[in-house]
């Protein structure tokens, strides 16, 4: 029973990982690619780490895997935000069919 749950989590993670990396290739500009990056990280890596910790059972490995998952969970939004802000400040344009850019209009 425990193993079935672990394998379901691993399968969901592998699916999200491959779909997210296809999204990183397909999407047209940096900001859309960061959405696909979030799919890879949250839906792929963290779910796979949870699946690995369920598969491992209760041991000192499990605690360490959960620490790694929690660390990725804390740091990924910070780095995504930093890259998006740096890209916008360094002048990377949005996709040409984007609808609106309030940041460009309202910030000096």
């Amino acid at each position: 029973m425990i193993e079935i749950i672990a394998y379901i989590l691993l399968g969901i993670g592998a699916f999200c990982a491959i779909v997210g990396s296809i999204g990183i290739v397909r999407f047209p500009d940096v900001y859309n690619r960061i959405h696909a990056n979030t799919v890879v990280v949250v839906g792929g890596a963290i779910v796979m780490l949870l699946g690995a910790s369920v598969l491992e059972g209760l041991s000192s490995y499990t605690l360490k895997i959960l620490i790694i998952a929690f660390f990725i969970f804390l740091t990924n939004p910070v780095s995504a935000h930093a890259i998006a802000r740096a890209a916008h400040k360094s002048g990377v344009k949005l996709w040409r069919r984007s609808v609106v850019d309030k940041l460009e209009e309202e910030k000096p």
Partner: protein
Amino acid sequence: MLWGNEAIPMAKGSLFVAFICLWLAWIALTGSLNPQELGVGAIVAAFVAVISYKLLFHGGMREKFEPKRWGYALAYVPAYIWAELKAHASVIYRILHPRMPIKPGIVRVPTKLRSDFGITGLANAITMTPGTLSVEVNEEEPSLYVHWINVEAVEPEQTSRQIAWPFERFLRRIFR
């Protein structure tokens, strides 16, 4: 010094909490209960806690352990997971659709949160759900500039209700 009479036990309390947290992190990372490891961990955790407890915790200790806030924090977890599931389904649909039905843009999302922790938590939650990405924070009138993969509304009230409200509903009670 600036510390009054009542501030000193508070400082002791935050020093103690910092020491316990650091020691638990040491035990979890070494993964053994050997008394030698525990002793070295206690020494190192005490040293780091004395240096850095003012950075880790500020404010009183009593209001951090108010049970109502922890109740809202527990209720936040299933709401957060539900928001994540919906956002993942929508973004995976957009990736796999052959004509890629996206309509991206950057909108402004005003927020009613005022504390630093509240705004940080809201920005992190918005970034962690795929489909919305916080690009910039405006600190004068607290609002976030959010890149949205499928812009449905541009007016600040609409965007605030659609993007920020599922998280802000809990965060404004957790971090006042």
